């Protein structure tokens, strides 16, 4: 029974915090770049306003187009409920690292299909790029989480985070932690993989895919990506042993600082980024068995 309550509280906390995280990242980024910036809680109002707007549906679309927002937000909800991120013992024990990787891939697949269904070149381009990133980051995700699982002695995420395994207590995990940071950047369409703020065709990945969505559907997709970012930041926070609020504030600041100091990579150089992440993760996994 207590597990059910923990799951619900955790879900509500993550759902409530998610827009704030996105807002904080934007606000910190504006400050770091010398702009005044919008208030961090503006995102709540943006989402509510978008929800009330008219839903414009493309003429060339099939049933897939309408499924996408529901599945993507549903999976984000699934992540926020089942992963042990707020309470160490929260979450559902049967959700292990393979289910996590599979569910993340499922969410990417639906986004990609939504991008392609509208029959525009923009959507296709974003879809092709997102699919490449998702396909090539999946092995890295599996290997990195397998490293944590090997240290914890169990593949269940509950055991990994519940046992208080952090980079500080296990310095050998440092390589895998760096790999995980690279995964988080790629999964959440952040610099240097994607630029979340522009609508330039050269830099768009995520934004290009959701270009045809408007009104409530757009709000759902935006909310889903906020939740995903929050979940990943909380996973990173758990691994350095930071608390919930510290993670949200410091994590958003670190992301904003990182994004303000680095340039976006050209998409056709992504294989370097992906190879670095893959081999870092592989080295991290081999490392814990050598030492």
């Amino acid at each position, binding site marked *: 029974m207590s597990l059910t309550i923990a799951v619900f509280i955790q879900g509500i906390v993550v759902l409530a915090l998610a827009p704030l995280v996105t807002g904080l990242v934007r606000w910190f980024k504006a400050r770091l770049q010398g702009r005044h910036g919008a208030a961090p809680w503006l995102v709540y109002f943006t989402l509510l306003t978008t929800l009330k707007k008219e839903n414009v549906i493309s003429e*060339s679309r099939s049933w897939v187009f309408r499924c996408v927002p*529901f599945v993507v937000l*549903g999976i984000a909800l699934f992540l926020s409920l089942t992963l042990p991120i707020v309470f160490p013992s929260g979450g559902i024990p049967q959700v292990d690292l393979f289910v996590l990787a*599979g569910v993340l891939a499922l969410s990417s697949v639906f986004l990609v299909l939504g991008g392609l269904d509208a029959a525009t070149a923009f959507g296709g381009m974003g879809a092709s790029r997102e*699919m490449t990133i998702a*396909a090539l980051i999946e092995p890295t995700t599996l290997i990195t989480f397998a490293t944590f699982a090997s240290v914890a002695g169990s*593949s269940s995420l509950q055991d990994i985070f519940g046992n208080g395994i952090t980079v500080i207590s296990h310095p050998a995990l440092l390589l895998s932690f760096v790999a995980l940071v690279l995964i988080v950047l790629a999964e959440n369409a952040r610099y240097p993989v994607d630029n979340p703020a522009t609508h330039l065709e050269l830099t768009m990945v995520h934004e290009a895919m959701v270009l045809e969505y408007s*009104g409530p559907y757009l709000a759902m997709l935006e909310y889903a990506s906020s939740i995903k970012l929050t979940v990943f930041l909380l996973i990173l926070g758990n691994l350095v042993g930071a608390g919930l609020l510290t993670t949200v504030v410091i994590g958003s600041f670190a992301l904003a600082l990182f994004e303000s100091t680095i340039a976006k990579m050209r998409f056709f150089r992504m294989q370097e980024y992906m190879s670095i992440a893959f081999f870092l993760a592989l080295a991290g*996994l*081999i490392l814990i068995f050598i030492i």
Partner: protein
Amino acid sequence: MSLFSQNLLFASLLFTLFSGICALGGRSLVFHKLSQGLLLVSGVLGMLASFKVLLAPQTVLYFGLASSEFFPVFQLDPYGAVFFLLISLVSFLSALYAVPYLASYQETYHLQSLNALVATFVLGMQLVVVSQSPMAFMLGWETMSLASFFLVVSDRSHESVKAALLYLVMTHLGAGALLIGFLLLAQGFFFADFEQLAALAASAPLWILSVCFGLFFFGFGSKAGLVPFHVWLPEAHPAAPSHISALMSGIMLKVALYGFLRVLLFILPPIGATASLFILGFGLLSALYGVLYAVVERDFKRTLAFSSIENIGLIFTMLGVAFFAQSQGLEGLYQTALIAAIFFAIAHAIFKSGLFLASGLIVRAVHSRDLEKMGGLARQMPLFSMVFFVLCLAAASLPPFAPFFGEWIFFQSILQNFSSQNLFVTIVLILTFAVIALVGGLAIFAMVKLFAISMLAEPRSEAAREVHEKPRAGELFSVAILAFLALGLGLYAPTVLSLIGASVLVSSPAEITVGSATIQPSLIFWLLLGCVFVVWILRRIFSRTAHERIYHGWDCGQPIDASMEYTATAFSAPIRFFFRLILKTKKTLVAQPVVATNPWITTRTATVDLRSIWMDYGYVPLGRFIIGMAEQVKKIQSGNIRFYLLLMFLTLILTIWVAL
């Protein structure tokens, strides 16, 4: 054992034979329907027989001549029953599909011979699985190979004949290797059955065992489509009619797997670490090579064929890990990896048959196998596209479908054996894990491309704009059953896994130990579905659903048409670029001036040609070498009869000298 259930197996084979005979009755559609109906009965009987064996352990169904010399030549043991069930299931559904499907191809195919050959093909596969002696096995094997050869040429086009001849050469090299392997093992006993063969193998010297292993690996591997013996597969599978492709890809490859495992588990003594690493290496190579080509391929059915190579590679990887674990004394990993391989094989038979059956409907709708001519089909056949979507998600190994749980149990068992004492074992397992994870990611890409380019967006050709031949009830039904099974097998994965455990690992208890990890597919499925449902409810509460408008897409001020959207080539371009060292492409750009005097205004055509490194650097030079050798040999053909007599005499002396 009651008389009825004994006769079940025999009746199943008999009905397959009747189906073949009935097909030859005449040109009228009645005979076509009757023949498929008999095949349906045979499938039902076969499924009943296999369930009988599977659900009651220690049961063996047999039939044969009463004479003690040949008894029992044909019997169905629990291990064979797994594959017999697959053969019966897929042939049942393909017969159901063929009734309306072939009716629309009466001009293209010669229905009488086609149906007779299908029945022969199924009969051959059934014979292979129930055979208990090498000779009966080879009889079934050759029946299957020859029937499928004629099925590949059934549309009598130039490409099909070329593909079929390549297939014939490869399959006979393989069959030759198998025959030599069996004869070497039998050491002169022509009619030894598998049990006697196992006894002989136990005392055979190591070099004979090694040579036999190599021959069996080549024989079964070439039939299963392992790289580098796979060259026939992407040519032959697409060339056949779609329900034949489903039979070939869905179950003929599994029959090869059956043979390989029959030899390794029941005949040869446990193979060593070297041989198992050999299997593992070829498995990983096939998986990676197959998936990369599945991503970049533009032909619908060839994509599926390459995806089959990838899946067979995965299965052989699992087998390689299993036997490697056995040689290292990791009994738990051996069992789970073996069970995972068979589970994945079952899942593959289901979803790949479904995809090939679906491909037939799509190809008929747009009159082309080219992905670049498809698109927009989801709006014209929504129900079919949903079923096809489920099959694609299953093929991409995404949760909550069966292949995902096949991979899950394999990954899980590897993960728990990382920390073995031996560092070499750890490194092998980690590298396998990494490569399989990479293959898994790319497999998603291939399947998303297949679904999205064919079904979504605007139609890319006139034929796809208005589809006249929509899927009919029987066709849709059989594809839907397979999609449903792909989901059901995933949800009931734990039950199925323990059933397989009981049937394959006869010597050990059928408990699957994956350490502390628990598998609860239905929990994950219902949670996912519940989350989506909650989102659906919330959206109804928080925003008005009627507040919407249909409008054209964002067009940058210029009307958009189908020529602007992404194609299969463009969609897979990043992967083609990132893996350009493996995926050899030949890009040619031809610029032709519109007016001869003005070189600046030109029409450009670009072609991207996919090359196969195995053909370019392996088979084509080898073929040239053999033809060159033949030219040399021709020199002794002087036309002088006395010289020929001399040659025959010398051969005779040489043979006698070798034999004595």
